[in-house]
């Protein structure tokens, strides 16, 4: 079984190297010719994110996923999601607002959480009319991430879930601290009136 995983991981690895080559060539062309090909780069990074998520999902569904928890500056994490998504959303006429009031480091899996939030913001962007908001705050014992939009909202927040959401929920619940586990909540409403995706991490 481990052999299969190695084959998959090595395939993903090689593919990402190829994608990185493509992105670096595009970035160089942009600089040289003073043009904006950020949508092409966005497509490359999204494809790569999708690959990572697929591999993560495979791990998670096999129940052999282990988190790699490091102290993370929450504000930095939010800035990176903004860097990854803001320009693309603006391209489609949607504003991404980021609100982070957490100043301290928080122990979490930086890469998986970045993926989860990128995915959530992407999803929100697909359904939003004009605005997506990513916010982060904490009450000292729990860290909250929320992604909300001004779209129609979830058809059924309690209903069936896409792979992305299943992965997000599993990743949240793998975050554990002093016997408390993380969780994911979906609802509708809020200040923007659309879908609300929320993660609570201990």
């Amino acid at each position, binding site marked *: 079984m481990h052999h299969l995983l190695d084959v998959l991981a090595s395939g993903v*690895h090689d593919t990402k190297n190829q994608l990185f080559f493509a992105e670096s060539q595009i970035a160089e062309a942009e600089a040289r010719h003073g043009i904006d090909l950020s949508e092409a780069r966005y497509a490359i990074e999204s494809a790569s994110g999708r690959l990572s998520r697929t591999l993560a999902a495979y791990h998670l569904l096999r129940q052999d996923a282990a988190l790699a928890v490091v102290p993370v500056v929450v504000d930095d994490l939010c800035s990176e999601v903004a860097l990854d998504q803001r320009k693309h959303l603006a391209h489609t006429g949607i504003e991404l607002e980021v609100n982070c009031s957490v100043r301290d480091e928080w122990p979490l899996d930086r890469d998986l959480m970045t993926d989860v939030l990128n995915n959530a913001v992407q999803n929100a962007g697909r359904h939003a009319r004009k605005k997506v908001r990513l916010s982060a705050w904490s009450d000292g014992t729990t860290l909250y991430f929320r992604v909300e939009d001004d779209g129609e909202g979830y058809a059924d927040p309690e209903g069936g879930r896409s792979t992305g959401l299943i992965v997000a929920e599993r990743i949240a619940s793998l975050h554990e*601290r002093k016997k408390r586990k993380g969780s994911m909540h979906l609802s509708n409403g809020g200040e923007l009136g659309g879908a609300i995706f929320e993660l609570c991490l201990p």
Partner: protein
Amino acid sequence: MTAVDYRQKRFLVIDDQPMARESLRAIAQTAGAFSVEFAPGYQDAIFKIRNNVPDIILCDYMLGDGRSGQQLLEELRRFNLLPDETIFMMVTGEQSYEQVVAAVELVPDDYIIKPFSPDKLIMRLERIAAKKQFFAAFYREKRKQEYAKALAILAATKDSDAGRNYRFESLRQEAEVHLAAGDAEKAEAAYRGILERYEFPWARAGVAKSLHRQNRLTEAREEIEKVVAGTPHYFDAADLKANICMAQGEHEEAQKVLDEVAKKTPRNYLRKRLLAEAAELNGDTETARAAMADVVANDTVAGAVTTEDQLTLARTHVGASDLISAEKVLLLMRESEVMNLDLAQQASFSALLAVASPGKGKPKFTGLRPALMASPLPTASRVDVLRAALSVDDRELADTQARQIMSGEDAKKVFGAVRKLYALQGREPDFREIQRQVAMQRIHHDETPAGGE
């Protein structure tokens, strides 16, 4: 944030794949870099860094040839080739490197997952620059081994507003400085403080290391077992466990642990040295010899193979009763090297040579006798002297060494080896008598038994 002028910075890109190197060059130059150098592999990278330290190193995690960027990083730190000002950024294609970073003690300044844009690279580099700036004064004092001053700086800055971003790093640095300063109790407290907040494997390993330094071996073992069970890919924890096992006299377990991890990291020569030590103590002289021979032949970074290594190799040959090989190793050591040996090394050198080649070694060994009787020596040298003294039937010298060893901190570690040396001369009863005397002395002095709990 500090705006960094990347045109002034010298980049070094380390990657064995031409296409990946090209990608990293393109990204770095788009980010503003003017000077980008390449190193296609491990040795070349070390050579370039040694000659002219770059400002920013972008190093792929997979370097080919059984080497990883993590190994390179460890090697650079081991030989002090990386100034604190240099940025070392690991570049990786998959998320599995995160598992390494989450566990190990020695981490790069940051790592970044491919593919990434020039903007993301800049964002990351600027954060690192800001962090290095925050800790700059602390690093300076730490490097000068001014530990009290370093700790004072941490205490003054860690609760500042800017320090909120680096709270865990501050705590970790505090613990490490306590360890470096030799205050294992305070280090333990600092690591436990981190664990209060989160169960980081490296912090738990830090507790184990601090307990080991306090010679609280049973507790240290309990703690490190938790880490090894929870994070099997955390090889430094396996090394620490092996060290603790050896201190407890459990050499078989130590060797087993190291055998396993050494297989996964065949080119980690510090670990090979440790394996040789464990195998030697475990009586597996062949493994010890093979590991040391590998170290001496293949740890190719200049200055990596030390006099100590040559002596250890000779010791493993003596242990395997291959006196010809032992003699060869000792006589191949350069005269200038032998001239500059300190007393402990002279003791080992002359003792091992006296055993391997009595004609050549005995005169020097006999000449050193007064110093060997009177001076403090590290345990390994004492065992060498003991072995030679037994072989030339100098009972007084042998028994003096045995007494010193058995009342020292390494008593449990080398107990089996010492007993075996006495047994080989048919003098086991004498060794038991020495043990008895040392034990009596302890009771009289009402001391905490050294090497005990």
